[in-house]
C-alpha cells in the first residue's frame, strides 16, 4: 500500500520536474523581470578550475559569451574576448546559498525590518517571502563580494509552514521581481522542533510540543490533499472548483511536485519522522536545513535523496543544536548524500567558502579526505540541485549561465578573496575596480561606498 503511494508520488515528481523548464515566466504572478547586466565575451586563462561537477582542472581556461559558459578546457581562444589572466588563481561556479534571509531580515536589523516571520499562526503557507524582500539590503552587496551569485530567501522558522521562498540572482534591483531567478521553482519553508512549539505553546496554542508539531503538519496535508483532489476533479469536468485558497494552493503545489520542501530540522530523530510524514502524504523533502544532526541519519538522507544543508560549526545555541560537530557535512558526503553548507546569516553568507574549508580540515583529522573539487559542490552544484536550478547554474559546463567566481587563490584559504564575480557572463563585482561594484541606496554616503563594506 505505502510502496505504491510512494511510487506514484515519485512519478508525479519526475513529471513535474520535466515541466519546470517549460514554464512561461511571463504568465506567472509576480514574474521575474530580471535582466542580466551587459557582458561581452570573456576568456579566463590559466586558472585552477573547480568545475562543480567534481573535477579539478589545472592551467585551464573558461570561455564566457552571451551570458553562458561556452567552454572549459586548455588552450581556448575567442576573437574579441576580454582576456583575464587567471594564472595562479582559482575559478569556480558562483556560490549559491540555499538558506538566506537577506532582504526579509535586512540590515540595519531594526524592528522595522523584521519581515521574515509571519508568526501569527502555525500554518502560514499562504505568505510569500518575495513580498517581504527589501532589495536595498546592503547584505546583498557584501554577499556578492563573497562570490555569491544566487540565493534562496526563506521565511523564518516560527511556524510549521512558514511560507513560500524565493530564489534570487544576486544583482540588486529596484524590486524583488528584478532579482528573481528566471524559471526557479518555489520552495515551501517548514520548521521542526523547538521554534514552532515555543512560539505557539507560549501563547497557550497548539503546537506546544513536538507531537503537536507533527499533528499540525498532518492535519494540513490532509486538507491540502482534499483541495488538490477537488481542483483536479473540477479541471476534469467533475464538480465545482473549491474557492481559491492561497494556503492550500501552496501546499497542493508541494503535493503535485511543483514546490520544493525546505525543512528547518536540527535533530536526526525529527528528520526521520519528517521523512515518514512525506511518505504518508506522497511528497518529497528536498532538503533539511540547519541539519545539525544530519551525520546521525546520513544513510536515511542518501536513501531518500534528501539534501542536508548545514553550518560548518554552529552549535549549542539551543538544545536541538547541542550535538553539532565540525565533521557533519563530511559524514553526510561520506554516506553518499547531498551535502550543502548554508549560512542563515548575513555575515556567514560572505564566506561560505571559508565555512566549507573548516569542515575539510576537521574531516582530515579523522582521515576523511574531502578534496577541493568535492567541497566546492557543497556551495555550488548541490545547493543548485536543492533549488531546482541545476540545469541552469551551479557548475562550469557549456551552456549554463556564466555565474563564475575568480578567486585570488584557493577558495579554501582564509587569505583568499573573490577577485571578480560574473553573473550571467557580466562582471558584477571586481575588488580592484570600485566603479564596477554596486552600492545599495541605503549605503550611499557611508564607509561602504569608500570601499569599506565592499
Amino acid at each position, binding site marked *: 500500500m505505502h510502496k505504491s503511494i510512494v511510487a506514484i508520488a515519485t512519478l508525479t515528481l519526475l513529471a513535474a520536474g520535466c515541466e519546470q523548464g517549460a514554464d512561461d515566466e511571463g504568465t506567472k504572478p509576480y514574474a521575474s523581470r530580471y535582466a542580466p547586466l551587459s557582458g561581452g565575451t570573456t576568456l579566463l586563462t590559466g586558472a585552477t578550475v573547480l568545475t562543480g561537477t567534481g573535477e579539478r582542472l589545472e592551467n585551464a581556461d573558461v570561455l564566457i559569451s552571451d551570458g553562458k559558459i561556452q567552454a572549459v578546457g586548455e588552450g581556448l581562444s575567442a576573437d574579441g574576448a576580454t582576456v583575464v589572466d587567471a594564472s595562479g588563481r582559482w575559478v569556480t561556479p558562483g556560490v549559491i546559498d540555499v538558506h538566506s534571509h537577506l532582504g526579509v531580515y535586512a540590515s540595519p536589523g531594526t524592528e522595522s525590518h523584521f519581515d521574515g516571520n509571519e508568526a501569527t499562526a502555525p500554518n502560514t503557507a499562504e505568505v510569500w517571502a518575495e513580498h517581504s524582500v527589501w532589495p536595498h539590503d546592503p547584505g546583498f552587496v557584501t554577499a556578492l563580494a563573497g562570490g555569491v551569485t544566487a540565493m534562496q530567501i526563506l521565511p523564518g522558522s516560527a511556524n510549521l509552514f512558514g511560507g513560500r521562498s524565493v530564489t534570487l540572482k544576486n544583482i540588486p534591483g529596484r524590486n524583488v521581481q528584478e532579482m528573481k531567478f528566471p524559471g526557479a521553482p518555489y520552495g515551501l519553508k517548514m520548521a521542526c522542533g523547538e521554534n514552532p512549539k515555543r512560539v505557539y505553546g507560549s501563547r497557550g496554542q497548539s503546537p506546544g510540543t513536538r507531537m503537536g508539531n507533527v499533528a499540525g503538519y498532518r492535519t494540513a496535508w490532509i486538507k491540502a490533499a482534499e483541495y488538490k483532489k477537488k481542483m483536479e476533479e473540477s479541471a476534469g469536468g467533475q464538480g465545482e472548483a473549491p474557492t481559491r485558497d492561497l494556503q492550500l494552493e501552496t501546499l497542493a503545489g508541494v503535493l503535485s511536485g511543483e514546490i520544493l520542501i525546505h525543512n528547518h530540522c536540527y535533530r536526526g530523530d525529527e528528520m526521520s519522522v519528517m521523512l515518514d510524514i512525506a511518505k504518508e502524504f506522497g511528497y518529497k523533502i528536498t532538503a533539511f536545513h540547519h541539519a545539525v544532526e544530519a551525520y*546521525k541519519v546520513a544513510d536515511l538522507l542518501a536513501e531518500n535523496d534528501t539534501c542536508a544543508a548545514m553550518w560548518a560549526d554552529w552549535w549549542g545555541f539551543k538544545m536541538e543544536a547541542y550535538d553539532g560537530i565540525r565533521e557533519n557535512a563530511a559524514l553526510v558526503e561520506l554516506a553518499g548524500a547531498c551535502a550543502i553548507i548554508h549560512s542563515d546569516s548575513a555575515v556567514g553568507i560572505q564566506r561560505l567558502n*571559508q565555512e566549507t574549508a573548516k569542515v575539510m580540515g576537521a574531516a582530515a583529522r*579523522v582521515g576523511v579526505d574531502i578534496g577541493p573539487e568535492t567541497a566546492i559542490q557543497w556551495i555550488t552544484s548541490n545547493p543548485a540541485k536543492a533549488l531546482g536550478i541545476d540545469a541552469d547554474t551551479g557548475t562550469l559546463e557549456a551552456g549554463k549561465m556564466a555565474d563564475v567566481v575568480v578567486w585570488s587563490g584557493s577558495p579554501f*584559504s*582564509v587569505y583568499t578573496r573573490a577577485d571578480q564575480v560574473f553573473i550571467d557572463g557580466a562582471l558584477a563585482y571586481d575588488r580592484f575596480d570600485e566603479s564596477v561594484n554596486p552600492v545599495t541606496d541605503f549605503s550611499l554616503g557611508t564607509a561602504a561606498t569608500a570601499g569599506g563594506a565592499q
Partner: protein
Amino acid sequence: MNFSKVLISCAALLLATSAVAQTTAITGATVYTMGPQGTVENATVVIEDGRFVSVEAGGAAPDGAETIDASGKIVTPGLFTPIGSLGLVEVGFSAGPLDALQRGEEFTASFDIADAYNPRSTLIAVSRIEGVTRAIITPSPGYPDESGSYGSVLAGLAAMVNLGGGDDSLEQRAVAMMVSLGQSGSGLAGGSRAGATLALRSALDEASSYGDDPGEREDYKLSLSDLGALQGVLSGDVPLFVSVNRASDISVLIDLVADYGIRAIIVGGSEAWMVADELAAAGIPVVLAPQDILPGNFDRLNARRESAVMLADAGVTIAFADGQSQTHNARNITQSAGNAVAYGLSSDAALRAITLAPAQIFGVADRVGSIEVGKEADAVIWPADPLELTSYPEQVFIKGNAVEMSSRQTLLRDRYLQTDSDKPPAYRK
C-alpha cells in the same frame, strides 16, 4: 548498559589535564614566541613545572624530559579569547544554565562573574582542543525583558580563567568591569545614550565620594558592594570594558576616561577606525570582530573590513572576538585573525591579537600570552599555519600539561563514524 565503564572513561577525560608532566621538551618546530625572541626556527621549547624554562634554536632536550618531535610544525602561545561566557553557559537559548546575565539593579558593578565559572562545562574541552587556553569571561549586559527588568549600564566584573578544566581554573578576578554605552547602553538607562553616559559618570562620582570617606553614610544610589567594586576602577587597577560602536560615543568615552583618570577597553568598535589616532593617544585598546562589517544598526553605519589594520597602524592595541558566537565558537578567533590578514593586517599582528595582545589588554601579560622563559606554559602545536581554516591543533598545553585532545563533539563524531557497526549508536563506545 555499562555505566561504570562510561563513568570511568568520563573521569579519565576530566582528570586528563591534571596530570603533571615534570619536564617536557618540544623540538624541531618553528616557534612564534610573540615575545622578544620573535620567531625561532628549529626550536627546542622546554617546559618545567608548568612554565617555559628555555626556548633555543637547536637546543638539546634535557635528560629525562618527555620529548615531543614537532619538526616541520608550528608552535604558538595558547589562544586567548577576550570576551564571552565560557563556563557560564551550556545551551544558550531556552535550556540554560545562563549564568552570565544578572538582571535587576540590586548589584551591578560588584556582580562578580568568577563565582559562576564551571571549569567542567562541555564547552571548555570543545574550545581547548582547538587551541584556546585562556579566556576572559564576562557578565552579559542587561537588556529589557517582558517583566520590565532592565539590568544596569554597569554589568559587573570579568575574570580570567584557564581552560584546563580543573578546580584551579580561576586565575584572576576583576580583570575588567563591563559597561554598556551607545545604543546598547541607551536601553538600560531610560532610552537615551546620554542617560547611559550619565549613569556611568554618576556611579563613578558616588564611588569617588564613598572612597574619600567610606565611614560617612550618605544616601548612595548604589549598594556598598558596588561602590567598593568601583574603587578599583577609580584607582586604575580595573579597566572599564565598554561595549560601544559609534564614533561619537567613542569620543565621549575618551573624554570620560580622561576626566576620571581611569582606563578603558572597547568591545565592538565598528567605527573606532574613525577615531583611531585619539584612541591610540588615550591608550584605549579595541576588541573587535573583523567580519562584522554590515550596519547591524545605525551605530555601525561605517563599519569596514579594514578596521583591524587601520587601528593597528594607528598604534591601537587590538584583540579579536568571533562576532557571531563569542562563546560556543570562541575557537573561531583564528578565523577572525585570518580575515584581518586578508584585509591588510600583518600575520604577526593577527597572531598577537589572539595571544599576547589580550593578555596585555587585561593586565596578565606578565604571566601568559607569549612563549617566554618564566611564563606559564600555554602552547599549541599546529601542523600548519594556525590561522588557516583547515589547520587544527595536534596538541595543546595548558600550564605545561598536555591536554587530552578530545571533547564531547569528537566522541559523538567517533561514535557515528562507526558506520559498519551492527550495534545501535548507544552501544558503540
